[in-house]
């Protein structure tokens, strides 16, 4: 053992202690809902699969429609159907359908079917925002909308890897690509309006509102008995448009209430959500875990700085000794001597 190494271990141990000390390294608390958080409540039992939301979304965001040439030829029409089969870089919202067996009855798990509208979940504690190295994805401090700034984005696609819902899409087919995701129609919101999909939804299946109110509404609906006639708000929760509809029964869960630390896009359906292709995310955001581990290691850059100090010191001692050794032939460490013997 020589002094270099001992010194190094001392410093390294100090660094490690700082890094692993529980006091400054407490787990990062979950993010809170912004004060004016808004969101969408999607109720699959109200959805009639008309895709008005998709059409409105594309119109609002100037997205091109996809063509299915064989289908269009078969029907002798062009530009009738939007043929995208999943969310992609020109589709920010998509109605998909779950079918089982004969698919006879809507919102039934066995021999039934159910629609589901997929789009950005606007997480309360978004992984994508934690992941993005250049803050291209940000959460609006008031509305909580997860927004995208192409001027910051470097296109690393870490947000795609991080998102538990596979929402951010990337324009792989373009030379100058962007990330594409729902931003809850920022221009409309700024003008006091509501997102295009909610505005277009004829049945109130996509309902815009303040998030706490939407949650209350969702829980109100969970108390409905199948067969009842109930009033459902249309377009926006605080508007005056209402619609009467028969309750077909709910799967007793509001998806998004707790998922991944909560989301601002809530879903209700008549069938379990795993059947509707929603992933098994836990109740805490992975961002929380990732940041806890990273910040534990890099708390105020104390540990790396201490480690660097130790390392530089050790290297300095070693190289200095070597240089002195080489120039003046003074005594040096046994290892250095041993090393020299080789030469």
């Amino acid at each position, binding site marked *: 053992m020589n002094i270099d190494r001992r010194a190094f271990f001392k410093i390294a141990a100090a660094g490690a202690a700082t890094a692993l000390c529980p006091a400054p390294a407490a787990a990062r608390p979950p993010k809170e809902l912004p004060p004016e958080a808004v969101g969408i409540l999607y109720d699959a039992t109200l959805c009639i699969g*008309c895709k*008005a939301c998709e*059409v409105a979304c594309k119109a609002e965001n100037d997205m091109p429609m996809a063509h299915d040439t064989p*289908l269009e030829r078969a029907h002798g029409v062009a530009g009738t*159907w939007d043929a995208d*089969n*999943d969310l992609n870089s020109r589709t920010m919202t998509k109605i998909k*359908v779950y079918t089982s067996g004969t698919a006879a009855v809507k919102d039934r798990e066995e021999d039934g*079917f159910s629609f589901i509208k997929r789009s950005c979940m606007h997480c309360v504690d978004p992984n994508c925002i934690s992941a993005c190295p250049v803050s291209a994805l940000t959460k609006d401090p008031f509305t909580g909308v997860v927004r995208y700034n192409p001027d910051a984005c470097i296109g690393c696609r870490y947000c795609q890897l991080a998102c538990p819902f596979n929402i951010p899409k990337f324009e792989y087919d373009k030379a100058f690509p962007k990330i594409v995701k729902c931003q809850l129609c920022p221009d409309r919101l700024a003008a006091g309006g509501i997102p295009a999909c909610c505005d277009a939804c*004829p049945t109130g299946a996509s309902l815009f509102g303040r998030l706490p109110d939407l949650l209350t509404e969702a829980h109100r609906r969970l108390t409905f008995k199948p067969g009842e006639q109930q009033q459902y708000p249309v377009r926006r929760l605080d508007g005056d448009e209402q619609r009467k509809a028969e309750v077909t029964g709910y799967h007793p869960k509001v998806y998004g209430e707790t998922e991944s630390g909560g989301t601002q896009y809530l879903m209700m359906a008549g069938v379990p959500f795993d059947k509707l292709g929603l992933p098994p995310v836990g109740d805490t955001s992975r961002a929380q875990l990732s940041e806890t581990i990273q910040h534990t290691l890099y708390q105020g850059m104390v540990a790396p700085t201490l480690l660097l100090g130790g390392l530089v010191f050790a290297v300095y001692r070693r190289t200095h000794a070597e240089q002195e050794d080489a120039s003046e032939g003074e005594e040096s460490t046994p290892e250095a001597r041993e090393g020299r013997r080789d030469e």
Partner: protein
Amino acid sequence: MNRSAASRREPALGPYLSDQLDVYGISRRRFIEFALGITATLGLPLGMSGQVLAALEDTKARPTVIWLHFQECTGCTESLLRATHPTVETLLLDLISFDYSETLLAAAGHQAEQALHDSLDKNKGQFILVVEGSVPLRDGGIYCKIADKTPQQMLHEIAPHAAAAVAIGSCASWGGVQSAAPNPTGAVGLPEALRITGITKTDGTPLPVITLPGCPASPYNLLATVLYYLTLKKLPELDAKGRPRFAYGHLIHDHCERRPHFDAGRFAEQFGDAGHRQGWCLYKLGCKGPETWANCPAIEFGDVGANTWPVGIGHPCFGCAEQGVGFHKALHEQADVESVTPPSLFPEIITKHAGGVTVGAAAVTGAIAGGAVVYALGANEKLKQVEAESTAVAKSEAEEPK
């Protein structure tokens, strides 16, 4: 075809319908086309059009019809008579023997009542009872009287002797406009009235009732029902509400010409807006097509022709034929989409994405892996030689000092 000289002299009363075509200015070709069309409406295979044609032509076995008017507007009869589709009403009137109809009968008063009684006596258990209009049940049905008899009384007298009944129009089928809240007369349709008053056939079996709802009912559907009976000598298949499946087996929504717009999410938001003018889906304007079972999109409405049915001319379906919809839901109120048959156009939950292995990629990968293995084995050989040399050297070195 017995195209006799006699029939030419008496053109209106030939034994065969085909004999009368000239009188109505209809070519034989159009007549056959019509027969084919109605075969299709009936949901029968086209090969049966010959039988349908035969039934059309043979007017000898015309069933006797007693046509009663209760609480109604006579719109069904009117639309039957005013049909511009040539010859429908003519064909119909020629196919059946109207022994009693308050609208069509030339006779009036006691004479008419006499005709009714005579026909009843003559055709007991064989005639078809057609009812147009609802039956008032409140206060003993005093809100509607014909020859001082309430509809209930008339049904008690006549219905048990009928072979079958046809309830034409929404009023007769389920109450129609009179049954709308608050329903002051306690109006119900014929099936309900028979059930409540307990009227059956004389032998105690229930009287079969075919309902042909619609406001007015499509005359075409009445004709088709009659032809079905004449062709196959049995009643057509009925649904739970007594409607012939061939006419009422599909939602208007399912065969609507604007359905592709619904599937593509394109809706008229207001009357006269861009979407409305382009013929987009009228669902948001309150179209009841998604919950109304009728064949309007196929045969259109009122037999007027020229794509004239409500949705065709830009008005949302009113749901007139559907109990609980027409006259019950507000015009603007959105329909319950009853059978959202998931079309194949919906993507499934799990989308198969491209990105799998291609032959080229596999070949390139294989080549790289192969190259790496060849290199590693080559290196192994060289190292083996070096090893052999060094052990030889080591041995010799070990031996040297000795």
